[in-house]
């Protein structure tokens, strides 16, 4: 309320009208961050899907006669009839003679699967817990203490500790281990949205009209969480890809024969001084992917949250 104009007449400040969707769509082409991020990501996805068609060989195949080759090295096999087969190791080989190029290309699959599944599952779980705990007061105190507790264990440590629970971690264990530290962050976000929305007049009106809690939550509260969740989901995806690489690199993640960027780097550690390519190539792919996802997230946040855009 802004003041009164005479008896009983009050001027109410109205919030600036929400931006028209068309205006938002018009701004999209100008947001370079989103475009660059999406383009790089698209390339990585294409690489992951088309891996067998990109001149790769079996990424797990060990070739004892071609160990520790430098990038571009060739292996020539002469057959009895005089013909030759030439294999080119575009990114060299590792200390077991595996083709680093094939491993790096196939490694993108694991990273993307982990990133996307952790993002999706953590958003769904976080959404449910956040909605319920933000709306039901007595549950809130308990849930938030548990979340606070989980959040006070540093994410990498929590993931490492969770992986150690099962013998021989597989993809599913690693996804689970990364998921647990990410969920509380989503819960907090959803809950903060719910807490601010539940005091809005339209939610109050819906409640006053006798709408059941479930209906209020899905019809009035849920839509408000979508934009921040899309942004948060992108950041969770980036952080999950990084965490998976870190777990593999430390040797506690997905088994070493599976090609993942972290595993290739872990393998290359011992001979890093002489053959840096084992670390270099997966690093480039990892950094490019995470950077692309983060840029996409940054751009989306600027697009979807006008308040932040004004500040930054």
């Amino acid at each position: 309320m802004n003041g009164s104009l005479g008896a009983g007449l009050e001027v109410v400040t109205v919030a600036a009208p929400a931006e028209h969707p068309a205006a938002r769509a018009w701004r999209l082409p100008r947001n370079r961050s989103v475009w660059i991020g999406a383009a790089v990501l698209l390339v990585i996805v294409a690489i992951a899907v088309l891996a067998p068609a990109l001149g790769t060989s079996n990424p797990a195949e060990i070739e004892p006669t071609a160990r520790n080759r430098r990038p571009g090295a060739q292996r020539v096999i002469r057959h009895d009839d005089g013909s030759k087969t030439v294999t080119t190791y575009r990114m060299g080989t590792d200390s077991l003679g595996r083709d680093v190029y094939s491993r790096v290309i196939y490694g993108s699959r694991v990273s993307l699967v982990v990133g996307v599944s952790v993002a999706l599952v953590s958003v769904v779980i976080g959404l449910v817990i956040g909605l319920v705990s933000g709306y039901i007061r007595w549950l809130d105190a308990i849930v938030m203490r548990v979340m606070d507790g989980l959040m006070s264990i540093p994410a990498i440590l929590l993931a490492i500790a969770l992986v150690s629970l099962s013998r021989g971690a597989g993809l599913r264990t690693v996804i689970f281990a990364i998921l647990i530290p990410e969920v509380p962050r989503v819960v907090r976000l959803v809950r903060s949205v719910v807490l601010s929305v539940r005091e809005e007049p339209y939610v109050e009106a819906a409640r006053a009209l006798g709408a059941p809690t479930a209906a209020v939550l899905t019809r009035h509260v849920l839509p408000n969480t979508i934009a921040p969740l899309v942004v948060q989901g992108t950041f969770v995806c980036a952080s999950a890809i990084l965490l998976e690489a870190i777990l593999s690199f430390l040797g506690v993640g997905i088994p070493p024969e599976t090609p993942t960027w972290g595993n290739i780097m872990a393998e290359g550690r011992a001979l890093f001084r002489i053959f840096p390519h084992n670390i270099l190539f997966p690093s480039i792919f990892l950094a490019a992917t995470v950077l692309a996802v983060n840029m996409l997230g940054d751009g989306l946040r600027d697009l979807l949250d006008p308040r932040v855009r004004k500040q930054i």
Partner: protein
Amino acid sequence: MLPYIGRRLLATVPVMAVVAVFVFLLLRLTAGDPAAIIAGDNATARDVAEIREKLGLNQPVVTQFVIWIGRILRGDFGESFFFKKTVAELIVSRLEPTLALSVCTMILAVLMAVPLGVVAAWKRGSWIDRSVMGLSVLGFSLPAFVIGYALMYLFAIELGWLPVQGYQRLADGFGGFIQRLILPSFTLAIIYVALIARITRAGVLEVLGADHVRTARAKGLGELPVLRRHVLRNAAVPIVTVIGFGVALLIGGVVVTESVFSIPGLGRLTVDAVLARDYPTVQAVVLLFSVVYVLINLIVDLTYTFLDPRIRY
């Protein structure tokens, strides 16, 4: 003030309780019988039964938890399966490198990030601003081991300016100690710089638009005193907050950085313990790091009252 400190201390109790329950369950949820793991492959059924008795694994879970918590509070973290030492001894022997690395990183990060953030906000929209923001996104996207190997390759292997790996105790000479800390601290500082610079920039931007800054400029105060006295002081609360929250990143980074640079600290210990399935050590280290994180954020909360006299509890 005192009642506030008391209340704030009380608020950490439930958080620490959740952490303790979780860390305790970590050992209980393991695949397989902990007693059988400790006893090893050549143990007889009687050995296993004896160990189970000794560890109190026959008692109900709640009793076990109470016994365990009681021991932890007395500083008894049990015995490491793998290193054949008490976990407390193990932790003390690995404390120095981790502490040195963390402190060094923190100082380096704050010294780099705060000026970067202030300049970015001050020259908002300029190329300086855009490159600081770009670098901060990059800093979030590069894992510590990628940065670590890149720096190691450049400065230690190609240029030969610094030692490649390893750690030297402070007692064995300051020169070698600091030389071996430069690369790891720098590696670890980058992600922290990204975080702090971003928040500093946002905080300073907000204050720059405030009335009192316009007044200070209007009365003819130079830009530098304005930034220092009127802007930075008011932007201090979010900056200090993020330094506190960033400790979680720092701890995670310590684990990775110590592995890259072969530093025998707590981070390396954690990884070794997990690989050896040495659960008492894993439990103790996770618990310790979490306590440190909670305590640092407690201290951060308490400094608010000094940084901003308006905050009264």
